């Protein structure tokens, strides 16, 4: 097995996803197939090949540190599932 159920559960936890037993079963199989396919990359000799994270060469894109207008608080909160007194409201963090 390329990836175990235990690893799928671990990764789902890292990604903040709940998986039920059926989804764990399915993803373990599908990810196994996909990762087996990814192993074709091991046929490529990449010794001394630098990695690419960005296809276009751009030097650091600096800008002036100038104060500009930003989205007003009311509009920034307009899409919030819950807000109060100009803040986002979330469930209790500390018991």
């Amino acid at each position, binding site marked *: 097995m390329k990836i175990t159920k235990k690893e799928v559960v671990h990764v789902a936890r890292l990604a903040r996803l709940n998986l039920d037993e059926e989804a764990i079963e399915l993803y373990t199989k599908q990810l196994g197939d996909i990762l087996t*396919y990814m192993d074709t990359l091991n046929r490529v000799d990449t010794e001394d090949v630098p990695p690419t994270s960005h296809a276009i060469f751009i030097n650091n894109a600096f800008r002036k540190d100038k104060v500009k207008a930003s989205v007003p608080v009311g509009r920034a909160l307009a899409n919030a599932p819950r807000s109060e007194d100009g803040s986002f409201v979330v469930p209790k963090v500390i018991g």
Partner: protein
Amino acid sequence: MDLCRLTIHEAHELLTRREITSIELTSAVFDRIVEVEDRTGAYIMLVKDRAMAEAAAADEMIRQGKGGPLTGVPLAIKDILCTEGIRTTCGSKILENFIPPYSSTVVNKLKRAHAVIVGKTNMDEFAMGSSTEHSALKVTRNPWDLTRIPGGSSGGSAVAVAADECIGAIGSDTGGSIRQPASHCGVVGLKPTYGRVSRFGLVAFASSLDQIGPIAKDVADCAILMNEICGYDPNDSTSVPREVQDYTRALQAGLNGLMVGIPTEYFAGGVDEDVTQAVNAAINVIEGLGATCKSVSLPHTQYAVAVYYLIAPAEASSNLARYDGVRYGFRDKEAEELIQMYRDTRSKGFGSEVQRRIIIGTYALSAGYYDAYYGKASQVRTLIMQDFKQAFETCDVLLAPVAPTPAFRLGEKLDDPLAMYLSDIFTLPASLAGIAGISVPCGFSKDGLPIGLQILSKHFDEEKLIRVAYNFEQATVFHTERPKL
């Protein structure tokens, strides 16, 4: 005359000559939508009232002798581009009720050009898919055969153009999401060089690959849309400060003296017979127009699927961490504790393909696997880029199929994610290299399904793509065919 069938340049000419008004044109487009939309399903949302107001304003401008090539022209926008005050769902339940507080740079540019926005088009959720079947909101069908997929992820935009439910459209391409649906729907789609068009306000999927581009009824329309959307944007630090040429000038040059490369790996087998035939015939046409063709090799092509399906999910897993139910989007309100709220929100808000990719990406980036997967893929990405660099040392453009087969059937690959990923083999390499590509109609399968020719150029050489595509288009009739709906 059926106004909805007009191209952008035809509509512009009639508007400028005052033979039609934008109100008439926009009404004709909405009439067409009423007629066919229940079969095609191109749009997630229509904004008719706004559109008619924009049309009226455009008409006033034209009366004053002002305006440009897009003034009063009805366009469709893929629902991945933020539109201030208009719902932007990205095809996802998690953003189903999200109303952006600002517009993307591309939408702002189109507004400044006084284009009319018809609505937001359907797409695979977060642009993850090749068939638009991963939309959480609705089904989009191929207008040439309603039992088939339109391609994806910009399936809605390609269908809206093909079915005359707009005059032109905007899509986005991360691994082929403009070129492949354009090919499957018989329209023209251009993916610009990475950095050519601002991504500000484009909902992020894989930031090192995402690029916005036009989907249109012909090549001239693509050139017109490119003129409007390209350019540096201080709000996107990955956009490139480089002058934008007038792409319509590329419509005047011939193909004499042009060196065209045919990458052997794109014709190596596993390609549908009708596709091979249509693309080979297209190569002959282009040679007949004065270009010289020669074989080239891009030896790392076969690794593009593996590289892309590690890098794109890795970037996605990071980008999509922002959907936590706190600031915008769906929240599962039952959870009593914060971490549980994150998990319930994301599990209920994201569809299965998005969750699958988040898990692949998280795995590829996780401790112990980073070097073997993400690191290795990033190195092979370098080799794919070097292949292209070498080919473009002697070639102006490359010609290839867009997809190994014409549009497959709805449902055909839904249960086999790897099979779906493998169908992207011919569009992924250019995305990984950040180069530009266009799909232009080049024939039909025996079943009457459109087939596209893919033309690739080096970075920032869109002018040559447009030049080759336009000469080919004008020498053939495929772009004049319309689906019978």
